């Protein structure tokens, strides 16, 4: 009996090996569905100020520091990716969150260069300030080898941000009116806590759940995904955060109105010391209701505010531009 069992056992193994062999032979005739051998990559460059980056120079750093999450193929499927939320960027799509360019366009080299150094808060992307500028420039060039879009398209034009007018209680009040009118609260919540009526249903473009930014959460060290200055906030809602539910407001907010919204958003950061919160405190701590006629603010309020209607439309074209 033992012998018979053994024979059965071996014949089972034999038939398994044979079957596997046949499958292997058949697989060669089967349609090409497996992973493709790596294509020869076109060398890419990046230019940040007077620094020129080269993809060949970025390869070893990428494989050493980036591939663990972003993957050898740049598709965001590195071995750590399954454990991460939000997911690492998939460079083969060439869709980037932090841009100075309009929605749907490629970011500038400088945008990517800054993102690497800044890291992305509320994610696993650390601050890579240990790299030299040359290393970062080379990495930017290397990232561009993953999508053919970088060969076919030019980066979008960087939006023009007018100089920031002074923070006033009127500016904050107008910003609050815009926050209501543009329905920012639908996702970010009336107090900016990231708890608006649509917040729970949001997904990114890969169908992964994603949270709207909670303004009220952080203290003095709070950062946004794409920076921490007032100009960065301006940039975020004008360009949108591509690949996420956050749309671009470039066509619907005038440049100086945008600054009013920035000033109001700062007051949502209740635990953070800011000039906006100081102005609010000095005004008694409550934001007065916005009165429509204040829209035509006197030119003396700020030299940067366009005085004449003619220059306003010019400014509109520059900042909100298409």
């Amino acid at each position: 009996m033992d012998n018979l069992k053994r024979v059965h056992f071996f014949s089972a193994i034999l038939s398994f090996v044979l079957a596997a062999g046949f499958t292997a032979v058949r697989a060669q005739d089967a349609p090409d569905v497996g992973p493709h051998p790596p294509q020869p990559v076109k060398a890419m460059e990046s230019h940040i100020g007077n620094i020129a980056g080269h993809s060949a120079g970025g390869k070893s750093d990428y494989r050493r520091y980036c591939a663990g999450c972003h993957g050898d193929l740049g598709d965001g499927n590195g071995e750590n990716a399954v454990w991460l939320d939000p997911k690492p960027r998939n460079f083969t799509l060439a869709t980037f969150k932090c841009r100075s360019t309009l929605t749907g366009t490629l970011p500038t080299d400088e945008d990517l260069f800054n993102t690497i150094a800044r890291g992305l808060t509320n994610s696993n992307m650390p601050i890579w300030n240990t790299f030299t500028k040359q290393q970062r420039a080379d990495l930017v060039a290397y990232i561009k080898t993953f999508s053919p879009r970088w060969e076919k398209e030019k980066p979008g034009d960087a939006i023009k941000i007018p100089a920031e007018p002074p923070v006033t209680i009127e500016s904050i009040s107008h910003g609050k009116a815009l926050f209501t009118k543009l329905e920012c609260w639908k996702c970010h919540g009336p107090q900016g806590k990231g708890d608006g009526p649509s917040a729970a249903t949001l997904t990114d473009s890969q169908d992964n759940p994603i949270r709207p930014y909670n303004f009220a959460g952080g203290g003095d060290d709070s950062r946004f995904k794409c920076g921490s200055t007032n100009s960065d906030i301006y940039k975020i809602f004008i360009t949108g955060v591509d690949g996420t539910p956050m749309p671009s407001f470039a066509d619907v907010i005038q440049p100086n109105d945008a600054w009013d919204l920035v000033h109001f958003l700062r007051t949502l950061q209740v635990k953070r010391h800011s000039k906006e919160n100081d102005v609010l405190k000095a005004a008694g701590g409550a934001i007065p209701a916005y009165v429509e006629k204040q829209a035509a603010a006197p030119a003396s309020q700020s030299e940067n505010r366009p005085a004449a209607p003619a220059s306003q439309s010019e400014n509109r074209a520059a900042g909100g531009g298409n």
Partner: protein
Amino acid sequence: MRTSKPCIAILMAMLCPALMFGGTISGKVTYTGTPVRQKPIDMSKEPSCAKQHATPVTTETVVTGTNNTLDNVVVYISAGGDDANAPAQAVTFTQKGCQYLPHVIALHTGQELQVVNADQTSHNIHPLAKVNREWNKSQPPGSPAIQDKFDQPEFISVKCNIHPWMHGWFVVLKTNHYSISKDGGFSLPNLPPGKYTVTAWHEDYGTQTQDVTITGNETKAIDFSFKAKAY
């Protein structure tokens, strides 16, 4: 100058039959099996939209008509057609009552798209393009139409992140010969004689193709039948 008029007359004589009296491919799109039940949409979080619907609207993943007919199937010439340019007029996609009207639009590469917000609430239009550029724009009530174009053929899923039930499709094609089935019916007129591949695409049931040869001004009838997905 003297020869130009007869030339035009000859050209017209050659072109007109092909353009005006060409062949037609038409037929019905049906399904077999039981389509998944469409769910009623709860718009209570958006009262300005909810009040526009006396009875709750449903999802539109599978829209059917009488006699097992299937709607919102894009039937188009995928091979053999002329390489005509994009028409000058824009294709309009309207947001009304927190729905996309229509649920599926088809347009030529390079043809202008106009997205209109007819609601009293903000929408964001977010075409989740993978071949074309993905973009995402806010459109508060009263703002002008958003205009854009797509350069590459692609079936682009479109959504509004603020109202997660809103979902539609931009079907970007390299042909002007397309028809979106209504009560299952479709018609592709003005086809010059030739061999064509006709593709039928449904957002949930996938694609089917058939080869059709047109000679002269005939009308060829072809039908498509999709197997309903059980889930």
